[in-house]
């Protein structure tokens, strides 16, 4: 949060990784979110792939992971 707080620390602290170096990797974050969407909501409330196969395949995990289903 605040760089001043870190600067005043007596113990050597790991320098924060600049946001601009993290930003390119956020693409992977979006991929993760897409993966979560397929487990949690695909062919339920909304659908990208037609049919019910994805929904049926991950069905038990969808219920157990807390996502709304049937």
């Amino acid at each position, binding site marked *: *949060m*605040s760089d*001043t*707080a*870190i600067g005043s*620390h007596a*113990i*050597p*602290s*790991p*320098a*924060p*990784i*600049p*946001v*601009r*170096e*993290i930003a*390119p*990797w*956020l693409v*992977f*974050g979006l*991929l*993760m*979110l897409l*993966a*979560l969407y*397929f*487990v*949690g*909501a695909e062919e*339920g*409330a*909304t659908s990208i792939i037609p*049919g*019910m*196969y994805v929904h*049926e*395949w*991950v*069905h*038990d*995990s*969808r*219920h*157990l*992971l*807390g*996502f*709304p*289903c*049937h």
Partner: protein
Amino acid sequence: MTVAIFWVSPATDMENRMMVRTLLIRGMLVGFLAGILVFSFAKVFGEPQVDHAIAFESAMDEAKAKADLERGIHDVEEPELVSRKLQASYGLLTGVMVYSTAFGGLFALVFSYANGRMKSTDPRVVSVLLAITGIIAVYVVPSIKYPANPPSVGNPDTIGMRTELYFIMMLVSLLGMIAATMLQGRLRQQYNAWTSTYLAGACYILIVFTTGELLPAVNEVPSNFPADLLWNFRIDSLGMQIIMWTTLGLGFGAFTEYANRNRFGYRNGANIQLNAH
């Protein structure tokens, strides 16, 4: 990443970027390992509850079909796309592994931002704190409002609304947690750790409580659904989350500490040498 950026970037930027890559791979790896544990638990404890709930559902469907037949209506049975056996084994495995690995990756990205920006300089502490706030924001709080339900509890006609509400609750909870964490950092400049955490925590609770009160309740549990089955299912669902987040929090932190020690020869040296160029 283009060649031009490569040439103007100082070496430390490149190394920082590679550090994020390392963390991301590590997070997905720990998430994958967590997934194996979560799957084992779900297979042994969760799956029997799903089976019981489906047995209840079938019994209800049969009773309904029989009643309909007496009134001259023929119910059409839905075709089974994926057999129960596959759903309960490879299907469950796929869902859990994808979920855990994805959360491992997201966890690593949040860690790469948080490490070095928190009071604690120990990656193990940062990792555990992230896991605790993560499970509260992503699972515990949204589930208090909209708990996990076994098959046959939800009404298929309301799936759109239920999904929307669940994700709204999760999003508000997550944003509330981020806001509270930022607030805690600010308060930390004036107050001690206890006071600032109490105040920030109170703000988070206020946000999610208000949201929870504003959003409509969903209760579609059939009146004759076994209460112990519902309870067991929800406890197993919570158990899976605890296993996943505990593994992420402890595993990722330990892995990072170990890697730092090997790489820099001393503890908690994540980026000190990288930035000393």
